[in-house]
C-alpha cells in the first residue's frame, strides 16, 4: 500500500486550485496523470516520488549520487584493505 515509485515529470499545469494541480509523470516510459498539489515547487524534468496518483516528494539527485559514491568508495576501500572475512563463523 505504501508502494511509491520515482518517475520523471513530463508535464505540469499551473492552477489556482489548491486540491488539484494536474501533471504527467513518466515511469520508464509509461505516462500517468499525477496530482502535484503537495509539491508546489516541482518542475518538469524533476524526479518525484508518486503514491496512488499523488506526488509526495522530490527525489534529490545530489543525495542519491552522494549515497552511491559513498557506498562505491566503501567497496573500493575494502578491496584495498581486505580484512579477514568472517563469513561462515
Amino acid at each position, binding site marked *: *500500500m*505504501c508502494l511509491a*515509485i520515482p518517475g520523471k515529470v513530463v508535464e505540469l499545469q499551473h492552477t489556482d486550485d489548491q486540491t488539484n494541480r494536474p501533471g504527467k509523470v513518466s515511469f520508464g516510459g509509461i505516462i500517468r496523470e499525477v496530482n502535484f498539489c503537495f509539491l508546489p515547487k516541482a518542475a518538469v524534468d524533476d524526479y518525484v*516520488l508518486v503514491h*496512488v496518483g*499523488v506526488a509526495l*516528494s522530490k527525489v534529490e539527485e545530489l543525495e542519491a549520487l552522494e549515497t552511491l559514491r559513498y557506498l*562505491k568508495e566503501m*567497496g573500493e576501500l575494502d578491496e584495498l584493505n581486505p580484512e579477514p572475512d568472517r563469513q561462515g563463523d
Partner: protein
Amino acid sequence: MKYLSEFRDEEIVRTLLGKIRKCVMKPWNIMEVCGGQTHGLVRHGLLQMLPEQVRMIHGPGCPVCVTPISLIDKAVELALEHNVILCSYGDMLRVPGSTISLQQARAMGGDIRILYSPLEAVSIARQNPEREVVFFAVGFETTAPPNALSVEQAYREKLSNYSILSSHVLVPPAMEAIMSDSETKVDGFLAAGHVCTVTGLSEYVPLVEKWKMPIVVTGFEPVDLLEGIYMVVSQLESGEYRLENQYRRVVKIDGNQRAVHLVNSVFEYRDREWRGIGEIPMSGLFLAQKYSDYDATLKFGPLKERSYEDSGCLSGDVMKGKIKPHECPNFGDGCTPVNPLGAPMVSNEGACAAYYNYVAQDSKE
C-alpha cells in the same frame, strides 16, 4: 539517474553484505516495520544472504492485514445491501471477511471497483450523481494525504454522494506497542521510508530516547535495505542509539508539511483496533467533525459489533514477530494466496504472501 537500477547494484549489495558480516558480533533482532520492505528483503533473496546473527523480524506494516474484519464486513454490506459503488485498492478484495470477501461480494453482483487512486473515486462520484460512491480508505501515513485529498476535493465541490470507509493506522504508536509487549524482543528498527516521506523524522525521536534503540529510516531497494541494516547493526555493536536517515534522497527532515497539514485538518487521532493485534492507543485516523458528512459509517450505519473471527489465522503472532510465517501450522497447506485464512497471505505487503511466493520456508531456521 533513474533512482531504481542504481540502488539494485550487485557490487554495492556485495560490499554492504561484507560490511554487515564484518561488523556483526552478537545476535540482533531487527524489525522492518513496513510490509513493502519485507517483500523487498524476501523477493531479492536478501534474508538468506544476511549473516545468521542478523535476525529480521517482519512488522505489522501491512495496512490491508491490520484492517479490522468488521470494516471488511461493512464494505461487503455497503456493496450488497446499500447498492453503493464501492471503490477499493486491489489488495483488499481477497481478504476474508467474517462471511465473505469483497471479491465474493462482487461475484454476487456488488458494484465493486478496483482503483489506483482515491482521486478516481471522486471522479466516479462526479460522473454518477445518482449513485453513492464509497472509497475503502485503507492505509498508513503515506496513503493518508491522498485519501484526505479526496475528501477535501469532495468537500470543496459539495459532492454529497461521496464518502470514505476509513481504516487509517499510524506507525509510531504500533512501534511503541511492539516495544511494550514483553514477549517481543526488538533491538532496532528500520523505519518505513515512505511513511517518513510524509511525516518527517520528529515522531521517532521520543521512541529512540525512551527505548534506547537505533531507528534508521530506510528505503526499499536492495542497496537501501542493506545500508539501513548496516547502519542499525553498526549502532548496536557500538552500544549507540540514534535516529538516522538512510533514505535521504527522498525523506526530508520535516517530511511534506503540506500533506501533513491536510491530514491533520481532515482527520483526527483516536484509539484503533488492529486486526490480529488488538487496540492500540491513538493509532488511528478518523474523519474530523467538519468532514463527518463524508464518513460512510455515519451515512450508512455503524460497524457491527466486533465480528467473529476464528479462521485459525495466526496473523497477530506473525506481525508481532513471535513466529515466522512458515511456522504457522496452516502455512501453505490450509492457507495459500488462492485460499487465504487471513490477510497477510493476501496482501502484496503481507509477510505470509512474501514467504509463500518467494521462499516457501526460511532456509536459516
